[in-house]
């Protein structure tokens, strides 16, 4: 799930619009008004994905008012886009210190720590976000992912179940969650349960590469190699940055190998080996 697009989606759309109360600067003098103005400019630029000028504007806002929380959070979002997680973490820690009861800021801090694989550190913030705003679907989702990262499978399953109840049908987060949950169940060898979730994701979003690939992987495990090839080929035709081409070629090479189609197996094996090595560490 830690692909750039997913991260960007969260950063751009999850609580990106600060409320009127949140954007109230620390003081109402002219300096604070100037900070607010710079922040608004930065926020607009961020939504337009013009990150460099957005960063300049938000830096100016913080120069004018160092404790202006929405600006701190916006700077954190920009830092995450630029892979500067260390900067993002500092900003978010400051933000939650100033505004500890903001579900959104707690979520973002937990989200940032999750992205850094620091699950134990991420957990309290995500739990607090979910507590502060029980209908915060993203918080539930990342809470589930964090539990999964910690090997707390039962908690992860409960988190996914809670998250799914909060999701609207056909929302992009729904399919992400279904696929992530399906992958967990696949890892646990619960192939039937996994396949039900992946099928649901495919109904909601048939063009989702991740879901097509997962369906292929499930079919392979069931030794239904023809179906594995069918879904693998579909996945390969679809755009997407979550599931890599390398993963799909790996599936297809094995599936073609099992069906005795040696030439096609060799083609995909060669592509698999030529693709950049993926390593989870």
């Amino acid at each position, binding site marked *: 799930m830690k692909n750039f697009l997913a991260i960007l989606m969260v950063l751009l759309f999850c609580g990106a619009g600060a409320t009127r109360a949140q954007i109230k600067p620390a003081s109402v003098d002219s300096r604070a008004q100037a900070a607010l103005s710079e922040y608004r400019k930065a926020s607009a630029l961020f939504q337009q994905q013009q990150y460099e000028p957005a960063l300049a504007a938000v830096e100016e806002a913080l120069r004018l008012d160092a404790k202006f929380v929405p600006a701190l959070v916006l700077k954190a979002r920009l830092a995450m886009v630029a892979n500067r997680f260390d900067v993002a973490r500092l900003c978010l820690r400051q933000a939650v210190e100033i505004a500890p009861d903001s579900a959104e800021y707690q979520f973002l801090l937990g989200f940032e720590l999750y992205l*850094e*694989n*620091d*699950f*134990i*550190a991420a957990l309290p913030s995500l739990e607090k976000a979910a507590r502060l705003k029980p209908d915060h679907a993203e918080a539930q989702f990342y809470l589930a992912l964090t539990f999964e*990262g*910690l*090997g707390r*499978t039962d908690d992860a399953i409960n988190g996914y179940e809670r998250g799914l109840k909060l999701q609207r049908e056909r929302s992009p987060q729904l399919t992400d969650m279904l696929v992530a949950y399906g992958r967990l169940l*696949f*890892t*646990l*060898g*619960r192939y039937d349960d996994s396949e039900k979730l992946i099928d649901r994701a495919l109904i909601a979003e048939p063009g989702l590469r991740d879901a097509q690939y997962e369906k292929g*992987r499930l079919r392979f*495990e069931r030794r239904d190699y023809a179906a594995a090839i069918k879904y693998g080929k579909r996945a390969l035709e679809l755009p997407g940055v979550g599931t890599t081409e*390398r*993963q799909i*070629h*790996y*599936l297809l*090479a*094995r599936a073609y*190998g099992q069906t005795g189609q040696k030439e096609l197996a060799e083609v995909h*094996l060669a592509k*698999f080996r030529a693709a950049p*090595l*993926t*390593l*989870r*560490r």
Partner: protein
Amino acid sequence: MVCTNLYAFCVLIHGSPPVWYETIPPSKSGVTFIHDSALSPRRYQPESIGPGVAVFDYDNDGWMDLYFVNSGVCDFFEPKTPVRNALYRNNRNGSFTDVTYKAGVAGRDFGLGVAATDYNDDGWTDLFVTNYGENILYRNNGDGSFTDVTKQAGLDARGLWTAAVWFDYDRDGMLDLFVGHFIRYDKTRERKCEYPDGLHYCHPMGYEPWPSKLYRNIGNGRFADVSEHSGIGVIKGKSFGAVATDINNDGWLDLFVANDSEPNFLFLNRCDGTFKEIGFEAGVAYSSDGAARSGMGVDAADYDGDGWEDLFVANFNREHFSLYRNRRDNSFSDEAGQTGIAEATQMYSGWGVKFFDLDADGDQDLIVCNGHPDDLIESINSSLKHKEPILLFENRTGKFANLGARAGEAFTRDFPARGLAVGDLNNDGFPDVVVANNGAAPLLLKHTGVGRSGAANHWVGLDLKGHSVGARITWSAGGIKRSRLKTAGGSYLSSHDPRELLGLGAATKLEWLEVRWPGPSKQVDRFEDVAADRYYSLKQAGKLE
């Protein structure tokens, strides 16, 4: 606390449930060895790799002795005080005596691993020590001393050597030698991985892979390098763990090699002196997503009792360890999720590992020791620790239950563990454990003899004399037939007690015992009504003694 009687009785007497293992402190064991990892501010790769340990009987007195490997002089390390390996003789009373210098096995270069066997079939167990530098073959002189015969044997190649496995790949009756190689390395190839708090060990992905070696035993104490011809040495890897086993029950030993950040190798014996690498086709090279994992420790055993050898790999944290169930068609499926292994190992980086019968109930339980290779990991990730717990799993009809604190006090603590060897140090029929820690003292764990269901189960110990790697041992106890293949290697840089402990459960004898010796003899020895709770030695076509 040693509880050999009823579980309930122990609870009554001690006020708490009995545990499986108790820690033997150095003051009691006499084992004062402390590993020197050569830790430097520069963080050179070999510092984080070792050490290994061997449990073997060097003086043929029937009691297992201990050999610990240490680092040593190399291009990046000049110790201020002498650093040496250590051989401890078993005093037969729970303590050990350091006899290293008398035995002449202090080592040289930068020691990492060890594999003990009687390679020249003279009845005395020899030692092969893997080094960063030149390996060492110590031939046992049979008088309490050893001679370094590395050069005469033709085993003096230099490199960053890790696992060593003695097995007879060509069934000529002589033990051949696989030596795993990690990355292509010397001081000048070291990289810099800087963090705010200083340099950390770099990920192995940034180093060049390098081929391992296979040496054929040609007799008279000499070996021929057959790496190229056999196919073993034509593929580059970053090998850590290796185990010889027979994955297709054809009577020829295959070789499974775990690589760090490279696909694992499964070398299928073609029965003609060559191997075919089938890791990809067999489904053991990569994760189910096609990612190369960080394979470190390995083992092979028939954990589900179907008569086919399964494979285990200890990987890095968040990769899950792999439990590959044999599908009986030269392929495997990773059952780590179904068996509980994935969930239990999610946060750990595993090294030494062994399938063994913890409770003498006849099936294969599992122990694995862990530790993050980066000693500074906690400064960059609060979810991970440098020292990690040892995990003891009980096999419950194919699912592995993590015993946690019930395993013993040591299992509630964390260690920078690497090597692990299992062996019966006090000849009581229960497997003890020795863990070799990186930059720290080893850990000795004595099995308390407790059985899960209450009374201790019964056992038979079998010491197969002579060339026995690849032997198939089959037995029947209480009407249940079981079978075990005598594998070679496994774990991580370490060497286990060569004797096999067969679990009988509540049965007090074996109805029958059959040993099918490996080629070229293929001798089958069969015995009826074998009494329990004692060790037997057996030579081919010999008597149980």
